[in-house]
């Protein structure tokens, strides 16, 4: 691995790859290959150094930091109103849910009561985000496996969600719609109508997804028994979200530590016990249906009232420590704020789901074939800015 600053001009001057460059690998007959940082299957700038014996993976070593922006350090000089906007850029596919976690943490510290209307709209938005994220994952993962069509199907429906978001929030990807105390603006007058139209459309399409991919024998053969992650390992590696629920770990934050109005709606926590890539795939497919169920229960019952609580112009969290966690599309996002009583956080830590999920990749991949690695990375649903932060 060369640093960007040392661009090698003369190919003959490149030294041979040192045998001990990768710890634990590099024995006689081993081949070391780099996947990434620019590789279509990594969906972002993730760099994996893989030690191979023939076609069998001996070790996978992630190299991170290609898009590390030091969001945590940046947040130390941003006020409690400002720092929420940075977090949209973390896991950009669950921008709303990231914002939700931060807003909840500030509200917990300031003891702000959020109006019911805001809470309900937040949950609808969160679930729409989850559907959009899982759709993108579904399309991209099928593409990694070798099926190109699903990608277009997924983006067709995702576009509808983006339109709904754009109308209400003014943005399609980094929405920044949540503020401490509620929402930045009220929902668009057409919001309910558009969401209902989307639900009708989406319920028809999700069965199409199953027909197109889930039941496909080639697909099942490529997923079944690939990337085994035992229940004990999933817990020990700190996995969360669909990656852990595919191994039967009961870990849905919406059920375990309900926030907003998740304790008032009915939905099932999806658990699969296959421990393999197919199980993680099934969790996400079934989760989309549960998200639809949540939205259906709430969309006609958005209470009237304020969309934002009255808060002070300058927010100051009392001295202390505050931790909140929410369930993003990828798993458990924790926001840990250490406050010294100032207008900016003293230290802030984002416990991102992708970072912990990635740590399990090495143990999942060892002993399997190189071609199966894309299935494992696909079902872990890695979003690189979420890992690097």
């Amino acid at each position, binding site marked *: 691995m060369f640093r960007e600053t040392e661009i090698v001009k003369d190919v003959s001057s490149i030294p041979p790859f040192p045998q001990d460059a990768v*710890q634990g690998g590099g024995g006689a007959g081993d081949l070391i290959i780099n996947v990434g940082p620019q590789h279509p299957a990594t969906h972002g700038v993730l760099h994996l150094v893989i030690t191979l014996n023939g076609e069998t993976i001996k070790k996978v070593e992630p190299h991170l*930091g290609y898009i590390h922006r030091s969001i945590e350090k*940046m947040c130390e000089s941003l006020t409690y109103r400002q720092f929420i906007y940075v977090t949209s850029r973390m896991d950009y596919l669950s921008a709303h849910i990231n914002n939700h976690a931060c807003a909840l943490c500030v509200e917990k510290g300031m003891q702000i009561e959020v109006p019911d209307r805001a809470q309900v709209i937040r949950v609808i938005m969160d679930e729409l985000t989850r559907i959009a994220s899982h759709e993108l994952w579904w399309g991209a993962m099928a593409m990694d496996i070798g099926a190109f069509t699903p990608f277009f199907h997924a983006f067709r429906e995702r576009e509808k969600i983006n339109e709904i978001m754009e109308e209400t929030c003014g943005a399609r990807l980094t929405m920044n719609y949540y503020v401490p105390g509620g929402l930045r603006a009220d929902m668009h007058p057409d919001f309910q109508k558009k969401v209902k139209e989307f639900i009708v459309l989406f319920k028809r399409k999700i069965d199409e997804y199953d027909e197109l991919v889930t039941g496909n024998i080639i697909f099942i053969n490529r997923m079944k028994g690939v990337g085994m992650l035992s229940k004990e390992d999933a817990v020990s590696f*700190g996995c969360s979200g669909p990656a852990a629920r595919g191994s039967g770990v009961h870990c849905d934050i919406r059920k375990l530590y309900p926030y907003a109005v998740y304790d008032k709606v009915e939905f099932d926590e999806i658990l699969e016990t296959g421990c393999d890539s197919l199980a993680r795939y099934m969790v996400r497919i079934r989760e989309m249906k549960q998200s639809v169920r949540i939205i259906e229960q709430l969309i006609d019952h958005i209470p009237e009232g304020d969309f934002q609580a009255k808060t002070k112009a300058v927010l100051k969290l009392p001295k202390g420590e505050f931790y909140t966690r929410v369930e993003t599309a990828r798993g458990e996002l924790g926001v840990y704020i*250490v406050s010294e009583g100032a207008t900016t956080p003293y230290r802030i830590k984002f416990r991102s789901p992708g*970072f*912990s999920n990635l740590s399990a990749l090495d143990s999942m991949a060892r002993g399997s074939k190189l071609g199966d690695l894309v299935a494992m990375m696909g079902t872990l649903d890695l979003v690189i800015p979420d890992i690097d932060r």
Partner: protein
Amino acid sequence: MEKEELKTKIAELLPAATFEESGEWLNILVTPADWLSFAGQLRHDERLLFDYLFCLTCIDFKTNLTMVYHLSSTTFRHNIVIKSVLDRARPEIESVSHIWKTAEFHEREVYEMFGVDFLNHPDLRLLILPDGWEGKNPMRKDFEDPVNMIKL
């Protein structure tokens, strides 16, 4: 277990521990020397079973570095926070990556960002920072980089 029960149970295991209860969860302050054996007890004691380390981080308080471990049990659903104060000039603590595997990555992150030395870590190398990065730990409060400004 509730906070009070946890407190009595942990006081039995480690009489030297001090408690702080102002926050949401029970905070336990342990010395770096006690940490490794205590961590093993937390993980394996049949009434505690803290098997899920959901957050591992460090805070630079300018006078010291404080390691913070957030633990949870998937069996009993109780949470605790463990803190350990390290010497800022020579921060050293035992690695717990063989108890909770996720700690391996998180400790590497803390190692490069704060310069904490994790003893007996299997693979303590830079994870996020580029190869050849020397000395300065970016997340420490006294870190200033005039070229690539992080502070706004």
